[in-house]
């Protein structure tokens, strides 16, 4: 218990004194997770909408596959991205391995299924009466779809926040493709992994508390947004 308490005290110290290294790592964690989330959202929300608004054979199966991929292990995506971007791999010429850029790409791939899947769920949750009424009033297919998407916007926001949460909290991929390079690719989770492997439990707990605090702030912001609906 003492260890946990000391970790808590240390976390407060690190936050209050704006410890430059901790601030830098936290900033990098946020920036990488936000960038991957934005990248994934730009691709996945339109993609999820396309899947929802179109009828095609195998649609149900596709949605099942997407939902299964919600829980794809981070190390599996990590290995895949590593092999793709390693110098010996097909995209090796870009020289992106062990950079924050490849971490953004990897995390975007990791959270893509969540964003596509939850976008479909959000759109499916919209009352059918809304597009039907719009159509009856003379709206064309696209206008009806836009109306449905407007109604589903909070569900989509949930999708984005879920994706952000998975991106900022994962460690396997960040470690494999980022390499946990101090001052360059070290993020909160990989720093925790390193510090606890060094037996520096207090700093690990402190970094863990900061990570949870960041997640809490984002969730509170989302909740407030939804309550105002």
């Amino acid at each position, binding site marked *: 218990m003492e260890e946990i308490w000391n970790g808590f005290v240390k976390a407060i110290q690190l936050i209050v004194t704006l410890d430059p290294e901790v601030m*830098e790592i936290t*900033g*990098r964690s*946020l*920036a*990488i997770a*936000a*960038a991957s*989330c*934005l*990248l994934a959202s730009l691709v996945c929300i339109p993609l999820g909408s396309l899947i929802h608004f179109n009828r095609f054979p195998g649609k149900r199966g596709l949605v099942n596959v997407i939902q299964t991929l919600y829980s794809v292990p981070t190390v599996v995506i990590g290995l895949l991205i590593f092999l793709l971007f*390693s*110098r*010996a*791999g097909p995209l*090796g*010429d870009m*020289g992106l*391995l*062990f*950079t*924050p*850029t490849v971490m*953004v790409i990897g995390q975007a791939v990791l959270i893509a299924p969540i964003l596509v899947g939850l976008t479909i769920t959000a759109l499916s949750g919209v009352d059918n009466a809304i597009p039907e009424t719009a159509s009856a009033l003379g709206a064309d297919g696209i206008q009806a779809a836009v109306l449905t998407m407007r109604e589903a916007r909070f569900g989509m*926001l949930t999708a984005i926040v879920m994706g952000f949460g998975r991106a900022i909290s994962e460690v396997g991929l960040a470690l494999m493709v980022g*390499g*946990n*390079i*101090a*001052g*360059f690719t070290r993020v909160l989770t990989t720093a925790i992994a390193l510090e606890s*492997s*060094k*037996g520096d439990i207090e700093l690990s707990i402190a970094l863990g508390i900061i990570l949870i605090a960041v997640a809490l702030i984002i969730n509170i*912001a989302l909740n*407030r*947004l939804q309550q*105002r*609906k």
Partner: protein
Amino acid sequence: MPNKTILRLLILLISLSLLLTVAGCTTAPGGQILSARERLRVATTTSLYDTGLWGLLEPIFEKKYNVELDVLYAGSGIALEYGKRGDVDVITVHDKAREQQFVAEGYGIERIPFAYNYFLIVGPASDPAGIKGMKPEDAFNKLADGGAASFISRGDESGTHARERAIWKSAGFDYEKVRKAGSWYIEGGKGMGPTLLMANEKQGYTLTDAATFLAFKGKLNLIPIVDKGSILLNVYSVIPVNPEKNPKVALNAQKAKDMVSFLTSPEIQKLIGDYGVKTYGTPLFIPCAGKPEPTE
């Protein structure tokens, strides 16, 4: 509309973060992505990292050669693999047989030993297996024989793991059989530090390099049990990755050579030899660049 304002704020925040990432957190030291400053990547065995040695050397090298140094820590096996794939420019490892193979196959230019120390078999002070003062091979024999105490293996293809297998072989064991010998043999699959912490939790034995042991000593209830035997010699080498085998790393071939000159320079050799004396009362590494490679 208040929620629209918040939504816009969120979008702004995310875009800003993205910009920051792309621009590479220019305010953070060493955080540049689009910076013109060259980057050199070194993959190092964990013992040179966990002991803090690279933390000391990195800023000195960066300043002297005006280059961003990226230090990746991994077991020697993975470090060599990074080298083979061309993902790093230079490696510092401790596994002579595989290093020689790495150079012979053309992946590395040259193997240059720059420091050494010794491996130790550490365990609880009570020495439940009764192996104190034995030769490493005899100690392993007794550990396998009684099964009285657990042995934690790195089990991760690291240099230390390679040495452990060499001792089993020298003691007349088939390593594949040792792995399955019983619950006393535990494959940790972790770095040296975590393996020591695990051995401490289990109050078992493990093979460790002396430097990591000294650096972790304060957190452990373990003492050196076996520390004599020529098989326990532990030599660290630096190997620049061969640009001809990996044309894409040619960019940093010169900087990789700089790294070799740096590590073998008298000034840094002295720094390596003095490292840890203040904190642990004894040096962690013995410099050996320019001298014949130690054999025992």
